[in-house]
């Protein structure tokens, strides 16, 4: 697949994407699509699982948060991820302007309303990874 090259990190290893969500089927479909595109995917259906994965893996490139609503728990995780330099993508059925503003203020890069177009989602992830790549290249210089 043509995307595979851009989906790999500088080391040549598949980028790791962490997905959090309560609906298991959503995560399965998301993981299936991402894996088909050459990414490594970890999924978590609870905050505890999510926290565990954040602790265990230090190579997370992007975190996708499939949220039912915007709660303090979510904002807290956003801040943690931001502090660790992980790019974030939030998926929600409805995103009021106030919440969109709040999310960006906590370091979330992109917010998409569900249902999402697969092509849009794939393009967004590719864009985020390229952004990360460019950031790293600038840091290295």
């Amino acid at each position, binding site marked *: 697949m043509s995307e595979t090259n851009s989906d790999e990190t500088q080391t040549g290893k598949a980028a790791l994407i962490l997905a959090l969500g309560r609906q298991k089927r959503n995560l399965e479909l998301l993981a299936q699509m991402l894996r088909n595109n050459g990414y490594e995917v970890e999924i978590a259906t609870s905050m505890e699982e999510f926290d565990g994965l954040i602790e265990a893996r230090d190579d997370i490139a992007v975190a996708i948060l499939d949220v039912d609503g915007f709660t303090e728990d979510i904002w807290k995780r956003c801040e943690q991820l931001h502090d660790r330099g992980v790019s974030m993508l939030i998926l929600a059925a409805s995103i009021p302007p106030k919440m969109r503003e709040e999310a960006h203020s906590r370091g979330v890069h992109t917010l998409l309303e569900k*249902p999402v177009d697969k092509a849009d989602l794939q393009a967004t992830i590719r864009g985020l990874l390229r952004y990360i790549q460019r950031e790293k290249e600038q840091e290295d210089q």
Partner: protein
Amino acid sequence: MSDVALERISSGVPGLDDVLGGGLIPGRSYLARGDPGTGKTLFGCSFLSRGVKVGEDALFVHLEEPEADVKKNAGAVGIDLDGVEFLDLSPNSGVFSSTQSYDIFDTDENEQTTFTERITDRVGTLSPDRVFIDPLTKLRYLTSDEYQFRKQVLALTRFFTEHDATVLLTSQNTSHSSDDDLQYLTDGTVQLRNGEMGRSLSVPKFRGSSVKSGEHAVRIGDGRPRANGENDGVSVFPALDPAETDRYTVGEQLSAGVPRLDELLGGGLERGTVTILSGPTGVGKTTVGTQFMKEAAGRGERSVVYLFEETTPTLFERSEAIGIPLEEMVENGALETREFEPLDNSAVEFANHVQREVERRDTSLVMIDGIDGYKLSLREADQRRLVRKLHSLCRYLKSVGVTVVLVDESATVMGEFSATDSGISYLADNIVFMRHLELNGEMRKAIGVLKKRTSDFERTLREFEITEHGITVGETLDELEGILTGEPQWTTPSEDNDE
């Protein structure tokens, strides 16, 4: 292309092949459309079951009902689906659980590929001769717009054609989603209906062949074997085609076996004509009709009497009492009696019964007893339509040389004479009427002929009696007047007459 040039395969539904001019054309796609409960799925089951019976591979792609339910429903009406391959694309109860529901992607984007891939994969593996997809309109929910839906349907039908499969699709027509467009995408359409007057179908489109026009009756069996040998499952009863019934062949005169009755009729009833026996209750209409059937039996001909107003045992009992051995005639195969349960049949089904009796069992005389019962027993909203269907049936019977006797009861026992009360006199070539009359304080009977299209007839009335020896017709009643009023007067009073 001419009809004969195309190969046909049976639809699996008795009667439908007749409507379709021989059956479905292999390798083409057909649409069965209709409201819920019209029997679309059962038509598909019959189509597949027939394929298995003749050694073909048959695939049922079901998108709504689970396989177990499909088999159970088909089995309940006597359709055997053993040997049919199933591709289950129906939702299971898991979709209600949180583990199966999703909102992250649109349904069309997520499932449509799976849907079409699973069908094409299975067809590619099995190479079925017959495919039934129930309902195809489910695909509409898996495509983003109408254009995509049409494109998918066309692609699927072409795929089946390339694999030489004959395909039957069902569709659901709803107020917010019409299935009209599907008719343009398939080679033929069978429109099913289930109205107040029973089940029916029509075939508005059939590429490559002419079909029988009109509304044809449909019956769905109850799974029990039928004593009369009729097919269970789904059956179609083709409506009579008026174009086929325009040839009239009036044949030789048939004697009633009662010389004076023959004299009244100018020699008898002509073969291939319609005769109405009209008169009030108890005057002897059925008896006169059975007399013609007895004579037909004597000539080695078969008759059928359709009873709408009395039972077979009652008819046998009455006839035996006057020396007409109907039961014996039935045993000898010279007569068949058929009772019709109220509202169990439509007029088209009845006409189809009669047609089959005539065509398959060489019947020469048909008696319908009586017209009021016919009107009450058959399902039809409009009485005028019932009479029109009777007219069509009579035209058909005449065209094949069958003699028809219609028994019609007039409302008044005496007085206020009219030929018939049923508005059917125009159907008749012959009208024979019978009247009760009171003469010198005694109830007596008279018989006369009012109309005869094909020969001359006696224009006087005769007294007649029904005794244990049968029908006796007396001399002409030319010394009486006012007979039709029921209270005749002697034209030349005499001592003898006053007795």
